[in-house]
Every structure is written in C-alpha cells, then in structure tokens.
C-alpha cells in the first residue's frame, strides 16, 4: 500500500503550502495599503526601518552573542604607535569623559596632525585621499551592543569612577587596529559591578 503513504504525504505538503501562501502578515510599514495587498516583503524592504534582523545570519550571531574579534579596518591604524607617542585615549576619542559615547575620530581630525606628520606613509596617503575626496573614513565598530540587548552604556560615569579604559578594551598599547579583547557581555558588566559594590539594578542599563 505504498502509494497511499505517498498520497497522504503529498496531501500534507499541499496543506502546508496552502497555509504559507494563503495569508501574509498584516502591514505595519504603510498604513495606507489595503488589507489584501499585504506581503512579507515590507519587513525586509529597504524603504523601511524595522527592529528585525537584516538577515537570518545576523539573528543567529546576535542570539549566540558572537562578534568578529578583529575586524578589518579601511586604514591600518596603529594604536600602539600613537599611544607610544604620548597621546591619551580621550585626545582622539573625544566625548568619552562627557557623555555616553566616545567619538571615533574622523578624517578631518586625523588630518589636523597628519597634514605635516609622516605624510609619505602609504596609509596616511590613503587618509589624505579620503580628505581630498571629502569622504569620511568608514571605520568598522569593534565594540558595540546588539540592539536586541536593549542596553544603554554611558562612558562618563565609569571614567569618573576611575575605571581604566584597558579594563574593558584591553591593553591598546599592544594593538594596531582595535581588537575585541574583552567580550563585553552582561556577565562581564555584572561581575565588575558586584566586585565594586555598584548597583546591579536592571534599569541602570536596560531601558
């Protein structure tokens, strides 16, 4: 009676297809569209900003809390040299001691020094070229939170509390382009907060 099995399996598959095709999710992107002209596409369409992940991959990496450890940067910048020359972190990462975020220096900022310094260096030429084109250097962020973490971090209070940059970003004096030396997950934050007897109230960071 083999054919019967196959018949039933076929029927089942048919039902699934029907279920998937019949109705698509109601529209959120564009209120003026009619109920019948709804399609899943709007969740991916570029004309719309949504909190959904851009791809299944990013969803998975986000779920597993996985980050590239040493992303390639457009310029082979070296923290090592700059720090060795006596620069402080906050000289370039302006705002780190004033507010939540530290700025990643832009091309204009680099050129303030590199107008003069080490202009023959090919990497610096690249920077100069960016500046000439009036383009910003597309730096790749190394330390960032996934939106789904719904977490807000503020640098300033940590710096005021005397937390060393290195304790969260690793020893930059040994790095060229930044590496994700520390996996900044919640466990890491909580551990430090507990050691220092700082509040671990959820809403301190999550809101």
């Amino acid at each position: 009676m083999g054919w019967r099995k196959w018949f039933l399996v076929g029927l089942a598959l048919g039902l699934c297809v029907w279920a998937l095709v019949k109705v698509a999710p109601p529209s959120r992107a564009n209120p003026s569209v009619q109920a019948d002209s709804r399609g899943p596409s709007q969740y991916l369409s570029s004309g719309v900003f949504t909190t959904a992940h851009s791809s299944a991959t990013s969803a998975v990496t986000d779920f597993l809390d996985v980050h590239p450890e040493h992303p390639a940067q457009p310029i082979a910048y070296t923290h090592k040299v700059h720090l060795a020359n006596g620069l402080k972190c906050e000289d370039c990462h302006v705002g780190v001691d004033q507010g939540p975020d530290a700025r990643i220096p832009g091309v204009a900022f680099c050129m303030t020094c590199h107008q003069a310094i080490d202009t023959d260096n090919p990497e610096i030429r690249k920077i100069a070229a960016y500046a000439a084109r009036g383009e910003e250097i597309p730096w790749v962020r190394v330390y960032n939170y996934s939106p789904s973490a719904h977490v807000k971090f503020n640098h300033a209070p940590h710096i005021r509390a005397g937390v060393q940059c290195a304790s969260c970003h690793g020893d930059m004096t040994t790095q060229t382009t930044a590496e994700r030396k520390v996996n900044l997950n919640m466990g890491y934050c909580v551990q430090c907060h507990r050691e220092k007897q700082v509040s671990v109230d959820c809403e301190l960071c999550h809101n």
Partner: protein
Amino acid sequence: MSHKWAMVVDLDRCTGCEACVVACHAENNIPTVGEDQAARGRAMHWIRVERSWEGDFPNPQIRFQPVLCQQCDDAPCEPVCPTYASYHTSEGLNGQVYNRCIGTRFCANACPYNVRFFNFYNPTWDLPLNLQLNPDVSVRSVGIMEKCTFCVQRIKSAEIQAEAEHREMKDGDFTTACAQSCASKALVFGDLDDPDSEVSRLQSSNRATKLLGELGTKPNVSYLERGTWQDATSG
C-alpha cells in the same frame, strides 16, 4: 539620597488636549501601528486621555482622565512575570526590562489599568522617519511588552548629571515628557521623598484620590478631582 518618583494629575486643569500623548510618542520611540492594526485594538499610547460621558443633551457632562502606568508600589504586573522582565526597581518604579521579556503577556493581563502594550510585530518606520528615534531609549522589537517608564532615561541622565556636578538631585532638575508639555500644568512629576517638591505638596491636597485605589495596588500616580464653582452671587 533615596527617591520615590510620583506624578499628580489635576483633573480640574486637564483640558484633554493630548499634547502629553504625542510628547510621549516622540520621547519614547513608541511606534505608530497604522490603521489596520489600530482597528484591531493594538494602538500604543503609553499615556491616554480617557473620556467618559454622563448625562444627555442638553446637559452632557464630560470627564477627561489621563491614564498612564500608575507605577504601583504593590504592582500586580510584577510578581506574575516568570523571568523578572517586569520587576520593582530600587527607586520604586515598575521596571520593564525589554531584553528579559519573553512575551508571556501575563503582566498585561494582570494589570488592572491596561497600560501595558505588546509589540505584536517588529515596529517599522518608513525612512527617514527612523531619524526621529530617541537614542536614549531602546527601540523595542517583536514579542516584547512595553509601558510608561516615567521617562526613566531622563531620570538616569539627571542622576548622572547631578553626580557629575557633585550635588543631590533637586525638584525640577528634570520632568517627564508628558508633564513637560502639559500647558495647563495638569501633570506634575517629582520625588515624594523630597518633602518640598510640588508633588509632595499636591498629593496632600484634599482632592487627591487614586485610580482604582480600592484594589490596594498603591499607585504612585494621584488624581486631583475636579473642583466646583461656588456661586458668589448666591453667597
């Protein structure tokens, strides 16, 4: 110094202009859900102005009442959450930790005030409307419960500011978006632990009541009832 954040709503001052509603949308990245979703009863308004009619033409009486999360001391929404996404913060707010929420929706069912709102879909903004999003507030995604936070992001930044200036927070350092926009000053926000704050003063008014106070949820939002006009002519 401890804080006990609270709000007083003067129903005699409230004009039902709903400035608070839009101000809240702007401050807290609340999505507009669109007509078909709104028709399904999924519109999100962390603060709403409830309206009730009494009497009939020619003498109809209308009452406006802004309703937002009452930030209860004994909140029915908190104990029922299996993952502590809904919990009581150290400053007495009903916290909602978005990334801990798995979406059982139990808290919203348990809430007597119906002020918790669920993200049935991933919210969307037609570009470039997304540029209006407030970077201090996280943008919720699908399957998450959300609600009025008493603008906790403003509380936090005010605390950080005070800490940076090595001083205690004082009344009027900041206020919630709704209270800030309220032209007739019907909404007043402040700290009950500060005896001189305006909320402390108003809350002791004899017009003060609590919404569904009989349920014993101990709300931190008080309502001042409408006054009446004493006829000067009839003495």
